[in-house]
């Protein structure tokens, strides 16, 4: 259905009483010309909506399942028209059946909602500005069910005339892979392959240089000090559960520390917040004592559970520090607000303190209050550093190569983004998008 209005320009003739036919004809011609010129000039400066342009229905209208989602979303696209402007508006309609009834979902100015506005990478999305785009999503009021057909129409209006396009249908379907994340996936595969390659290299060439990590060198010193003073060693595995990488790293380091405490016959105390971590640490410490040839020195209650409540745990550990005055405190793993409460109390007792965490917000507190701090990745490197096993050390080489690659990418990316911003070109966007994380 097309609504249209037409403006008719009526010509007018001015007749004079003058009887001279040639002169009156010339006068009539000149007045007509003047009227025509005025009309043309007025149309040139008039707003577009007042033009007598008939609005064509949206062309190349498509409804499609949105790629890379879990279903429940439909994309609509149609070609941008020459008459698109702020005074012309598009209206999006949707129905559950082809016969209708159609309900209006949205209305927006015709110079907005382009495909290029969508934050998706070039390899999974046509980022052209030649097509409009509107995404229909599930809302609490309007739920789009996967596997069911929905019908859509788009109309264009300037307030006086409205032109409606053809109807299209689409079925929202859940996808098995989000193509927008393919760069992330490939980088992960590349880095994993690099780590495995460096491990294989390390097996062939075991002599790999490792830079000194003072915090890990001090482990031996701290245990020795505790032995000399006849005081226990306090080891904390952090506040996270076993699914956290930093907790796993903390338990791995605990194994190395336990071997040394077994060798020195020093008491080890490991209070826990998580019973699963406690059970695993019990097993690790037991094995370490066995490996050190001191199964008799192992005490089952060296690992004990306190509570999973943050500040109750902190209060209990602070109490242990103040009453038993351990000679060395180890804070490994992930910590929250309790980091400073623990480390500052430990510092007050005069214990040698070694912290290792990937909680970047707590790092300043540990650096301030501890003698040595393993920053971020050094926590993960600790097991390789302490054990010196070539396979584990090989992973550190892989990490360094990965860092070098990322550093180079960042420098190049920063330069290209700056040039792009200064020159005002989008030429580098495809390259820069390779390193962006898309959802």
């Amino acid at each position, binding site marked *: 259905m097309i609504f249209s209005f037409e403006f008719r320009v009526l010509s007018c003739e001015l007749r004079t009483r003058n009887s001279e036919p040639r002169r009156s004809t010339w006068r009539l011609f000149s007045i007509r010309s003047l009227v025509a010129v005025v009309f043309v000039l007025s149309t040139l400066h008039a707003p577009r909506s007042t033009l007598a342009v008939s609005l064509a229905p949206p062309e190349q209208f498509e409804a499609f399942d949105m790629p890379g989602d879990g279903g429940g979303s439909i994309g609509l696209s149609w070609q941008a028209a020459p008459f698109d402007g702020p005074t012309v508006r598009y209206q999006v309609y949707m129905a559950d059946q082809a016969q209708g009834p159609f309900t209006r979902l949205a209305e927006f100015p015709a110079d907005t909602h382009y495909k290029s506005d969508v934050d998706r990478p070039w390899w999974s999305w046509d980022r052209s500005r030649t097509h409009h785009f509107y995404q229909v999503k599930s809302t609490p009021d309007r739920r789009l069910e996967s596997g069911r057909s929905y019908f859509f129409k788009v109309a264009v209006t300037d307030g006086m005339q409205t032109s409606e396009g053809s109807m299209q249908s689409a079925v929202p379907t859940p996808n098995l*892979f989000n193509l927008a994340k393919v760069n992330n996936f490939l980088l992960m595969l590349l880095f994993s392959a690099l780590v495995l390659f460096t491990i294989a290299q390390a097996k062939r060439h075991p002599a790999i240089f490792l830079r000194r990590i003072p915090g890990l060198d001090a482990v031996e010193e701290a245990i020795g000090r505790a032995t000399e003073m006849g005081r226990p060693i306090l080891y904390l595995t952090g506040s996270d559960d076993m*699914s956290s990488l930093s907790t796993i790293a903390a338990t791995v380091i605990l194994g190395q520390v336990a071997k040394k405490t077994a060798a020195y016959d020093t008491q080890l105390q490991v209070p826990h917040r998580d019973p699963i971590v406690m059970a*695993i640490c019990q097993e690790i410490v037991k*094995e370490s004592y066995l490996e050190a040839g001191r199964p008799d020195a192992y005490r089952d209650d060296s690992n004990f*559970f306190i509570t999973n409540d943050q500040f109750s745990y902190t*209060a209990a550990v602070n109490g242990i520090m103040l*009453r038993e005055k351990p000679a060395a405190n180890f804070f490994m793993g992930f910590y929250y607000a309790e980091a400073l409460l623990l480390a500052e109390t430990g510092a007050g007792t005069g214990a040698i303190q070694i912290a290792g965490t*990937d909680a970047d917000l707590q790092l300043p507190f540990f650096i*301030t209050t501890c003698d040595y701090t393993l920053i971020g990745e050094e926590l993960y490197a600790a097991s390789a550093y302490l054990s010196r096993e070539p*396979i584990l050390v090989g992973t550190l080489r892989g990490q360094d190569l990965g860092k070098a690659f990322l550093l180079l990418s960042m420098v190049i990316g920063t330069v290209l983004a700056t040039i792009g911003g200064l020159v005002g070109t989008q030429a580098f966007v495809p390259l820069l998008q390779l390193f962006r994380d898309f959802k």
Partner: protein
Amino acid sequence: MILFLRRTFPLILTFLFGVAGALQYYIPHPVSEAALTEVSVWLRIILGFAMILGIASLCHVHYAKIRTRVAGWGYSLVVYLSMMITVVVGVWSRGQEEGTGFGWIYTYALLALQGTMFAMLGFFVASAAFRAFRARSKEAAVLLVAAILMMFGRVPLGEYLIPMAGPVAGWLLSVVNTAARRGILIGISLGGIAMSVKIIFGIERSYLGGRD
């Protein structure tokens, strides 16, 4: 068979769940989301059973302290009494908090104690800052200057006295601090991936309890 159950089977499980967990990030299908939710439910169930181990450990440690009358054994008695009272009142209140003794214990004992511990953080920050800001080395001196600028820039009176302190503090936060944090985070991320690869492929297995 015992070796298989103690070593090989956990490594197979680690590999399967590790790979599935990594792939889950790239699969938007509802089945993938449902699997993740299901696994987190399993984790909660396992944690529920593991809590029995935790409580047993707690009771054992404090019982030993009371029995041997070690220094501070009275605190262990407090632990036992508090636990017993909370359990009894909780059962009596049928686990309901609203208008019950159980809710009263939570609001007027536990929350108050937690608040006290958290409030102490302010004093601990002051004492840690005092120690850190003693300009004994070049690094400590830089830290001291940066901290003074930050304090002046973040306190209205400070910015009134030194108008430049605000922009300088903002620059320190958004440029210097952010750059350092991002550097650390990149290292953490790469270290995390390397650690994950080691665990998934069974290269790092000491968390299973020593090496075989």
